[in-house]
């Protein structure tokens, strides 16, 4: 045959259709695997480590402008902050005396009931790097990652209360889902009466939903929801949301409440990540699952 010896004038790769099927199949496989399992996390981490220097370079002008603005405005900002702090100090002084009284009383009661003390939580201050563009979730990307000790599952708070939860970390960045994200649910209780509930993100825009309430549940608009500490990830007593409205459905016998988050992640750039013991919480959960699984 002459074909073997003939000159190759044109480069013949795989046809366009073959390449389309290969790449589209690969993309679909990635999509489905990524949506269902976490097997692709190492790939994502590798790529995001490569991306990180470019992201920082592109954000450098913005950070520079903010820094210069900070310097120029320093005196003015200090005065405003000083006034705010003065006011806060007077308010807090009143509360502090009250709190000291309560703390002493609480300690005494704890001793009586043999309840262990609440430990203070170590935390890491983080800054927002950017808000990822995705219509399907409400996330924020912070400037510290697993190299600073952040792990998936840790809660994020600001001065108002719970902001969200870390869902993904790379060595230098961490991605947090806000409490309004529909994949997040937080064990809460009503501050007024201690009723334990679960608040879910999603639903209406920027709101949280409290679902699976019996129609007679004692919940009213204006109730403050705080974390209940059940589950081990969110420490007890952090403000989460305020109930706006309660919908009671007499047909199903269930009620549902809408609540507005008390934290305002859109107003701040700095947040605290609480370094809870994620491993311990996971072990507890596994132990519980193991028990129920064994019974089956």
């Amino acid at each position: 045959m002459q074909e073997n010896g003939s000159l190759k004038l044109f480069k013949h790769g795989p046809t366009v259709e073959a390449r389309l099927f290969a790449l589209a199949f690969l993309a679909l496989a990635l999509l489905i695997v990524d949506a269902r399992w976490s097997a692709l996390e190492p790939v994502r981490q590798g790529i995001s480590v490569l991306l990180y220097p470019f992201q920082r370079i592109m954000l450098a002008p913005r950070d520079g402008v903010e820094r210069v603005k900070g310097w120029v405005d320093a005196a003015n900002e200090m005065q405003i902050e000083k006034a705010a702090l003065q006011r806060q100090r007077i308010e807090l002084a009143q509360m502090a005396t009250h709190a000291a009284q309560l703390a002493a009383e609480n300690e005494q009661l704890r001793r009586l009931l043999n309840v262990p003390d609440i430990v203070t939580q170590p935390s890491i201050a983080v800054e927002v790097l950017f808000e990822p563009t995705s219509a399907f979730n409400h996330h924020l990307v912070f400037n510290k990652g697993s190299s600073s000790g952040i792990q998936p599952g840790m809660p994020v708070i600001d001065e108002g209360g719970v902001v969200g939860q870390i869902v993904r970390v790379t060595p230098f960045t961490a991605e947090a889902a806000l409490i309004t994200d529909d994949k997040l649910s937080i064990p809460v209780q009503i501050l007024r009466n201690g009723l334990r509930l679960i608040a879910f993100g999603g639903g209406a825009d920027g709101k949280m939903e409290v679902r699976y309430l019996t129609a007679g549940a004692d919940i009213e608009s204006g109730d403050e929801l705080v974390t209940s500490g059940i589950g081990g990830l969110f420490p007890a007593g952090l403000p989460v949301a305020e109930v706006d409205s309660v919908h009671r459905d007499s047909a199903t016998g269930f009620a549902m409440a809408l609540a507005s988050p008390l934290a305002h992640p859109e107003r701040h750039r700095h947040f605290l990540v609480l370094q809870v013991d994620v491993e311990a919480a996971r072990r507890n959960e596994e132990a519980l699952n193991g028990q129920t699984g064994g019974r089956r």
Partner: protein
Amino acid sequence: MAARRVRVEVARKGAGLSSLEPIDKTPFRLAASPGFIWLTVVLVWLFSLLQWRTWQPAPDLLLLVIAYWCLNEPGRIGMVTAFCFGLLMDVHDGSLLGVHALTYTLVAYGTLVLSRRLQRFNSVVQCIHMLPVFVVAKSASRLIEGWLAGEWLGWGWLWSAILMALLWPLVDVLLQMPQRRHEEGDGGSV
């Protein structure tokens, strides 16, 4: 009389010459330099890392530039490049891996399939051809993403596709600029 005849002769000659002008006056497109192609793609990619894309109808400029080079320089930028840049955008956006990769691959394929036809038209007609390509590619990945997430997030992305099609002639002018300048330089020697 003689002088007049000569003048007529000259006039006739002039008319003859002007009738010899080529029917197709559009200049040949020179190949863009590979450095320029990659520079534009990387610059637009870097620009896409900024925050302006949080606005949902924002046009995907990276996709637009990749589609443009797929049409004009299919030897340099093809479906594999489109796929890789799509994957980079997926990681940056924190979306499911493969959403942008699928869109970019489909747009690159659509452009490559239509390229023979598109090259006969100017950029305004091209942009009418590109609109369905953008819409189909985006709707495919939106449908799959919606199916996996269990919710449909509306039609805001259609504006993005329309804006991209509208920006096509502008991209054509901007990315052809260096090649055009080259032609003008050559014009004197012909």
